């Protein structure tokens, strides 16, 4: 277990700056997710923590020690790669044994031929084999131990990759999009398994993903990263319900948050194309704002309600448990999505004119710079 700290880390490749003076503290045993669109620098950040890449400036600390000069192999971190990166010429068992052999056996004991005559080798090897056995039982891969990676499915390879990281009992796990090569069903399943593994091992996990659903479901805290900066670092609940900027709001949540053009007056009234959305803006400032309402906070209503937006259904997406209604509003100017219980919208069809209401408590507003304007 370890605390990991990043102190004003920056990284440039030539003249392009991929990470801009970034700070991050990960506490002991925490599951932290770094989430962001591809190319935002999240994988580079992970590789800097691992020691596979050198930062341009700043310090990486593990348990309070600066490890800038420490080689990847000596940082005692384990990493699970997107491509799994299993040794193709070794069986699963040998793959799992490699990190242990390298750490437990001395140089001479590992040496071909000479090693066979070293006195402690066989007892150490027995210990390694039993460790591998225990790890493979945890991950339920005992029946695969004699196979080579090429003979395994993606999910099985993924387990082996996790196993290889696990056997060593590292101070922290680094995971670089470990689930993105799996099919959708397996991905959801493995999400639960990795969370469970984290609960069992109680080790620090740093998990990098571009999938906001993985970040929301698995992490203690998540860091939303864009263009080399962490925009917001908080619990998934906070990030979802109280995003600091419009970019975070748009990135987190599926389907995407509805953003409507609106105006705010001095009294704190918020209007979108002539309809009053809410009157609860605390720091009232006259001007243009962007109004954000999540799809599940909108619903179809009967016309008797006081504040409604008129819209037209253009597409109906049935997911079984929910129906996503894609609508055009403001005379076809803007598109929004409403997430609804199937029973509430059973009678709707594409082309229908409908009334849309919303939960005033959940409305968010962002100023022209995209900053969240605090709500009452």
């Amino acid at each position: 277990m370890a605390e990991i700290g990043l102190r004003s880390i920056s990284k440039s490749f030539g003249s392009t700056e991929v990470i801009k003076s970034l700070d991050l503290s990960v506490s002991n045993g925490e599951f932290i997710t770094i989430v962001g669109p591809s190319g935002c620098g999240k994988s580079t950040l992970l590789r800097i923590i691992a020691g596979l890449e050198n930062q341009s400036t700043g310090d990486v600390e593990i348990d309070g020690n600066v490890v800038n000069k420490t080689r990847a192999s000596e940082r005692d971190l384990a990493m699970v790669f997107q491509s799994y990166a299993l040794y193709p010429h070794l069986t699963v068992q040998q793959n799992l044994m490699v990190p242990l052999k390298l750490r437990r056996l001395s140089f001479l004991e590992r040496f071909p031929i000479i090693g066979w005559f070293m006195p402690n080798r066989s007892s150490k090897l027995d210990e390694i084999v039993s460790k591998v056995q225990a790890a493979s039982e945890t991950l339920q891969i005992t029946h695969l131990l004699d196979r080579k990676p090429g003979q395994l499915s993606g999910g099985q390879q993924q387990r082996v990759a996790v196993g290889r990281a696990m056997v060593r009992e590292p101070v922290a796990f680094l995971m670089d999009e470990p689930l993105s090569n799996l099919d959708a069903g397996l991905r959801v399943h493995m999400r639960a398994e990795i969370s469970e593994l984290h609960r069992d091992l109680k080790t620090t996990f740093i998990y990098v993903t571009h999938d906001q659903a993985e970040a929301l479901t698995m992490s203690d805290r998540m860091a939303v990263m864009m263009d080399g900066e962490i925009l917001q670092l908080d619990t998934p609940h906070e990030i979802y319900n109280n995003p600091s900027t419009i970019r975070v709001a748009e990135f987190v949540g599926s389907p995407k948050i509805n953003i409507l053009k609106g105006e705010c007056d001095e009294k704190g009234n918020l209007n979108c194309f002539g309809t009053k959305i809410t009157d609860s803006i605390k720091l009232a400032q006259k001007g243009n704002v962007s109004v954000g309402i999540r799809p599940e906070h909108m619903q179809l209503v009967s016309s008797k309600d006081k504040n409604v937006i008129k819209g037209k259904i253009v597409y109906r997406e049935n997911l079984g448990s929910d129906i996503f209604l894609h609508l055009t509003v403001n005379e076809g100017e803007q598109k929004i999505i409403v997430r609804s219980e199937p029973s509430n919208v059973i009678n709707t069809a594409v082309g229908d004119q409908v009334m849309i209401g919303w939960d005033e408590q959940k409305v968010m507003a962002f100023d022209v710079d995209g900053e969240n304007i605090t709500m009452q």
Partner: protein
Amino acid sequence: MNKRTNLGSEVGKHIILIIGALVVILPFYLMLSFSFKSPAEIQSISGGFFGAQEMMTDRKCLKAERSEEECTMLPIVYNYTAAFKEAPLLRYLLNGVIVTLSIFAIQVIIALPCAYALAKLNFWGRDVVFGLVIFCLLIPVHAIALPLYLMLAKFGLTNTFAALVIPWTISVFGIFLMRQFFKTVPDDLINAARMDGMSEFSIVWKVMLPTAIPALLAFAIFSVVAHWNDYYWPRIVITGDQDLMTPPLGLRMFKSDMDGNEYGPMMAAATVIVAPLVVAFLLAQRRFIEGITLTGMK
């Protein structure tokens, strides 16, 4: 209609291929055939592939005052026994094995780390170094033969195995070939090995080497064939000591020892010398072709 044109072009292709194959096979056919036949049959170009195999008497053997019975035998037996008797053919073969295998082993030991560094490590001047490697590919062996010879002579290494091996130990072709292959190995695999605690040298031998077996086999083919068949360099550095001669050089010595028209034993010797390569090819035919297509060389 379409089928017919396909058939036509297929037949055309095969005719061309067959002609090509005949041109390549014909010398081998003659070599093998001559190694079976009696001198008379070779001279008169008769007796088909295998010759009549009539008993013949060796005149040289009679001159050595042996009995006529001892000197009469089948032409095939005569040719092959003469081949082994007249020159230390087994010695040549053994030398060939020692030289080609040492060259290949040292080439691998040197080329793999070089190729790894050029393919996967970032260091200042890497592209320049790789440019030099490419440049070295362009230098013909014959151009640098004289300085190499002088250097070896200065160190007193002529007429040793070292002279046969040392100039070939750094194979730029090997470095180039392996570098191109290593480029295709995913970085993640190397990073995983680093995270597991491997040193860069361990990565070369324990991760890169096993994944590069197909490329290595391709390189082995080029290296072993080139140095097994090499006549030029052994001819320069080995000047007389029969115990150091490689098979092609031995064959040359062999020829000058024989009477002018003793083609039978000579062809028998040649057959014995090419046999290891042919056998190796037949055993590893598929790997061979895989390897050559891998390098993109024809």
